Every structure is written in structure tokens, then in C-alpha cells.
């Protein structure tokens, strides 16, 4: 089998950072704050690379939608083993208003253009926490979806995927081409090594715009305000039968 996989990688505020709300209460502080690849996307990249190492997949393409700095995230994916990258440049207000609804259409177009057999995405991004992009992408492509995957196995021309659901684990058979979204227990992503980081600098990243894919990304939502969660109040002790 020599399949091609598309992996989505999003640049988000690093999970270890304490996020602060901007004074204008319209968003969070991102300037000067450490960013890195969405942890679920790292798992997606790792899974794609493992499929490549098992010779099930021939080529892995990493895509990111965002400002110039998103290229750093793509470089990390390349250092982990992806073959090439696609950067769809979206900046400023357009980027702030970008939603899974828009991204899924872009990913679907790329999937078709690149003739991929699998799209692997993180189940959700740790900034939006939407858990929608994978599902919407599958819907636009009219492909089967296997979300919250904790195990992916090849099964002749199909995939057998174990999913983490509320009731426990569900195992399904999915025909290819398909969209998979990764959950935490799918794998532990590898670290980029120095030689691989060096090699990644030479791998190609195609620069694209939204216009290249003819997708309308006009905002469908308006942020009214962003606030901190309420401060936790101290508890009180109830002693004896005094209420």
C-alpha cells in the first residue's frame, strides 16, 4: 500500500503557559507568549509517521492555517518526519475570526488537491476546544470519520479504529479514504532530534492563500467579550449540627 496522509497542525499557546485575558477583554494575550504545536496534533503527526515507518503510508504532508509563525509549527512536523508542508497564510482579524467551519473547507480542498487517502487531525485544539474540525472536514468530503482514536490498525484496504467514547472503548471498521481525529492515548509523540531539525530546514513548505482554495472565510461569529473564570471562593466548615 502506498498511501498519502494529510496531517493538520495548529500553532497554539503552549499548554504550560498561564493564559491571561487582554485588558480590552476581547481576547487573550498572545504577544511574547510561548506557542507550540497543539498537543493532539503532535499525536496526529506521530501516528502518521508511524504508519510511514510501517510502510503503510508513502508520504505525509503537514498543513497549517495561520500567520507567518505557523511555519515554525510546520517545521516541527517536518522534523518529526513529515515529508513536506503546506502553509495557508491567514493573518490579523481574518485569523482571529477563523473557525472550524472555515478550516474544514480548506482542509477538504487540500485533501482533494493532494489526492490523500487519510486526513489525521487532533481531536481538538487546546485554544478553541471546539472538537469540530475533523468531523466537519469529513462531512465536506463526504468521507467516513473515526474520531477520538486511541488505536488505529490497518485491515486490508480499510482501517480498524478503537475510539474512546463516554461508555468506554468502541471499535469500528472504517473504509478509506477517511478522516481520523486523535485522542490522548493513541501514542506518545517522538522528540525532534537536532539532525532531524537540520534536515527539516531543507524540506519544502508550499506557501498558499485562502484564495488559492476558493474558500469563503468571512466571519460567522462575533466575539462579544472574554473574561476570566470567577475566582474560587473559600469553602466553609460546618461543625456539629450547626447549619
Amino acid at each position, binding site marked *: 500500500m502506498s498511501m498519502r496522509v494529510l496531517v493538520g497542525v495548529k500553532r497554539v499557546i503552549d499548554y*504550560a503557559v498561564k493564559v491571561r485575558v487582554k485588558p480590552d477583554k476581547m481576547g487573550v494575550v498572545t504577544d511574547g507568549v510561548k506557542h507550540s504545536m497543539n498537543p493532539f496534533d503532535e499525536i496526529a503527526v506521530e501516528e502518521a509517521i508511524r504508519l510511514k515507518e510501517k510502510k503503510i503510508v508513502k508520504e505525509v504532508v503537514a498543513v497549517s492555517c495561520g500567520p507567518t509563525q505557523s511555519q515554525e509549527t510546520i517545521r*516541527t512536523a517536518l522534523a518529526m518526519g513529515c515529508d513536506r508542508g503546506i502553509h495557508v497564510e491567514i493573518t490579523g482579524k481574518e485569523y482571529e475570526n477563523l473557525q472550524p467551519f472555515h478550516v474544514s473547507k480548506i482542509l477538504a480542498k487540500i485533501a482533494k488537491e493532494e489526492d490523500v487517502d487519510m486526513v489525521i487531525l487532533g481531536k481538538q485544539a487546546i485554544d478553541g476546544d471546539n472538537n469540530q474540525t475533523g468531523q466537519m472536514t469529513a462531512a465536506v468530503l463526504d468521507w467516513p470519520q473515526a474520531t477520538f482514536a486511541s488505536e488505529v490498525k490497518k485491515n486490508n484496504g480499510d482501517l480498524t479504529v478503537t475510539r474512546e467514547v463516554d461508555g468506554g472503548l468502541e471499535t469500528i471498521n472504517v473504509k478509506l479514504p477517511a478522516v481520523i481525529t486523535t485522542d490522548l492515548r493513541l501514542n*506518545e509523540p517522538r*522528540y*525532534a*532530534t*537536532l539532525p*532531524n*531539525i537540520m534536515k527539516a530546514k531543507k524540506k519544502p513548505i508550499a506557501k498558499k492563500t485562502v484564495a488559492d482554495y476558493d474558500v469563503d472565510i468571512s466571519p460567522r461569529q462575533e466575539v462579544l467579550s472574554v473574561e476570566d473564570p470567577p475566582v474560587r471562593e473559600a469553602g466553609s466548615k460546618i461543625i456539629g449540627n450547626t447549619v
Partner: protein
Amino acid sequence: MMLRGLRILLGTQRSHIAVNLTAQKSTLAQVENGAVSSSVIEKLVEICGSKDVSTSTPVREQHGRDESYHHCEPPDVVVFPTSTEKVSQVARLCYDHQIPIIPFGSGTGMEGGVTASKGGVCVDVTKMDQIEAVNAEDFDCTVQSGVTRVGLNNSLRDTGLWFPVDPGADCTLCGMCATGASGTNAVRYGTMRENVMNLEVVLSDGRIIETAGKGTRTKKSSAGYNLTNLFVGSEGTLGIITKATLKLYGQPESILSAICHFPDVQSAVDTVVQTLQCGIPMARIELLCEKMMDAFNKYSNYDYKVTPSLFLEFHGAENHVDDQGKIVAELCEANGGTQFNWAKDMDERNKLWKARHMCFYAATSLRPGARWLATDVCVPISRLPEIVVETKKDIDNSSILGPIVGHVGDGNFHTVLVVMPDSPEEIAEASALHDRMAERAMKLGGTCTGEHGVGLGKRHHLVTQFGQGGMDVMMQLKQTLDPKNIMNPGKVLFTD
């Protein structure tokens, strides 16, 4: 000649069997217990803010204990300063009022280093948790005292670099500096002593210094006295470490782990000595005795052979790693080793080393309710076989359960003496085993503590190891840097 005493902790009482020390001790100021008045607490609130000062009992108790068997001795108040400047002001305040200061990181120490036997102010550094700089091209980074080693490595994952010193716990890096820590990787990457480039330290009177120079971060330096390595291993008795500049290494290109089982401890340790003499750049060589393998299997759900075993790891380019593995496999076989299990898969390797790091807990889980009295002797590698075999015999002849796990590549091994904390007899027997072990080690050119530090329980061993001259110099340094004897009194040296 100095008589060594045993320190036996009986619940909240302490009885200190007579120790005849030299006259040095009496020149140090005697610290009063409970010297933290409400006016001092008000001043602490002024410095740190009311949110960052606590006198509540649970918080104080949390800060009065670590992972050792020593009983909890809570401080009078805990502060959580958010900057070096605040730490300095707190130190100045304590200096002026002659109040003990105990720095606290993650509370994962092994020797009772944070127990506040004289009460005082516990300075919890965990709110200073910023990684200030990562200089990837120079292979160094600077971290504040609240940054933990796993936190740092997670943050570095995109850079291809890591900080390899890995004691089992996710401890603070500056805590690791304070105890001169080491881990399973030391055989290849060294311990804290070799990997700290510079420290920012707050002294007992609030002065702030940088031990290698202001902003210095070079691989080497001949400039002035080596203050950095004075504070590394000082366990909070000379100053509070608020920042560290550390050496970083490239992530290994390829990693291969393996386990091999041996008929006895001697053949396992012989294999280690031969491997190192072959010049093979091992990344990890760990020994687990059969009792430890039993605990390991039970605790982490494995099914390995219950005999003395070596856990090995090779780092390097893929073909090198495979070659090294083959050579070591041959050596193991030549010594009677069997069932060489390879693990190249990352998930499998991580699971294995996580389980290895849990060994101390695994051992104490064999006796619910028990704590550990951990020994930590380290000897020249050629003397390792004899000391491990003799020690094991000693333990097997006692009534104490004492599984062995060790970084045999460094000549360092731990016996996890499993004791009930409320049984003075068990503690006494374990302490006696420990004393004999330490004496054995020191006769062979070894040290009483390879990486855990001295804390409370090994002070008398220190005296034997250094003798009069060495102890005098240490006391003199202590008196110079901490004339009021407020910096973690009673630790490392007999200053209480």
C-alpha cells in the same frame, strides 16, 4: 575521637543519643524554636502579599515533610515569593530576627532536608516558575527555582535538546542543584555537579550573588573560586538558589533499551564492570535485585523473571546503538545472563523506565503502611561487586526487607530499607544496616551519599567520611556564609 550517634525519631519526641562533637558547634548561634511572631508575619505579608503567606496547619504540614521516613516537622509559616527580590527581603527579615529559613521546591527529597526542626519560615519557590532563556545554539538554558525537570524538558521538545539528569521524581531543577542530584542517565551525561553553569543565590542576609559571574554562561571558566559547586549540594544550608543556568544536550538520535536476567548479583555487577571497561558509552545501566524485580513486577504489572537483572539503555546513531547492544548482549551471556529483552519502541521504553523510577514506591508497597530508609552509597566501580554482595548478605541476615536498585554504572546503589515509621526497633535495625554499609563503602574509597544528600540522617556518616580537617573547613564556611545559623539549621552539619 568522635563518637557517632544514632538519631531515632519516636513520633513527635526526639531523643538524640550523645554525640561528642568538637567545640565548633558551640560557636554557632543557637536558634530558638517558635520565633515567628505576629509582627514578623505581618512583615512577610507586606513583602509577599497576603495570598502568598500561609500559617494554616495543612499547608505547614505539607511543607514539613518529604519522601523520607523522617517525621513531619512543620515550619511556623510558609511563604510563596514570586521574585528573587522578594526572597531577598524575606531572607533579610529572617536574618534580622534570627528566624530559620527552609527553602522548599517539590518536597521530593530523600533525606528529611525540608523538615523544620527549629520551626521558622519555609520559602516555597514554586511560584517562580519561568524558563527565562533557552539558548539552543549554546546548549544552555536559565530557569527560575520553581521550574521542574519534566516541565523544562516538555518546554524544550521542539528544540531537539533536553536536560538529561533524571532523578525519579519530577523535582525542581534548583532543588536538584541544592542536593547535588543525579539519576539513571548520569553514567553518560553526568550529575548536577557537572551540568550547572551558574546559580543565582540569595544569602542568609539577603545579598544576591551569581556564582559564576553576572550572566556568565560558558562551558568552562577559571575565574575565581568555584562558588557554583560550593552551593551545589549545600542543601539550603548556605543560601537559597533562585535561578540556575544549566547545560543542555541533544536528544539522542536513536535509543535502545534492554533487560537481562542473571543467576545472582555478582554476575550482574561483573557484567557492568566489564561493559564499562570495554568503553561502551552506556546511557543507563541499572541493577535490580530479585526482591526489587518482584516488587517491580507487582507494582507495574510486568512479568519479568524474578532474579537479579540489569536494565540497559543505549543512545546514539541507529547503527552504533545496535552494535553496542550486540556487544553488551555477548558480555551478559558470558556472565550467565539470559533472556535478553530488547525494547526499541518509544511507548515500551517509556513504560519501562517509568516503572523503574517507581521502584522505591514499589518496594514500600510490599508492606502497606511502610516508608523507606533509602541508602545511597557510592564506590569506585571496581569495588562494586564486593560491596553489593556483602551488603545483600547483611540485609538477608536481618529482619528488614531491603530490595536493591542502583545506578551501577556510577558505582552507586540504593537499598530501599522498608520500615514502619512508628517502629523504633525497625528504624534502629535499618539504621544499623545503613551504618555498616556506609562504613564498608568508605573503606573502599566510597562516599556515604552518591546523590540524595546528607539531610538529617547521614550527618554522622559525613563526619566519618571527612574527618576533623574536612569537617572543620565545612563548619568555617557555614559560619562565614550563615553566621546566625538560620539557613536550614540541623541539616548536613550538626548545627542544631
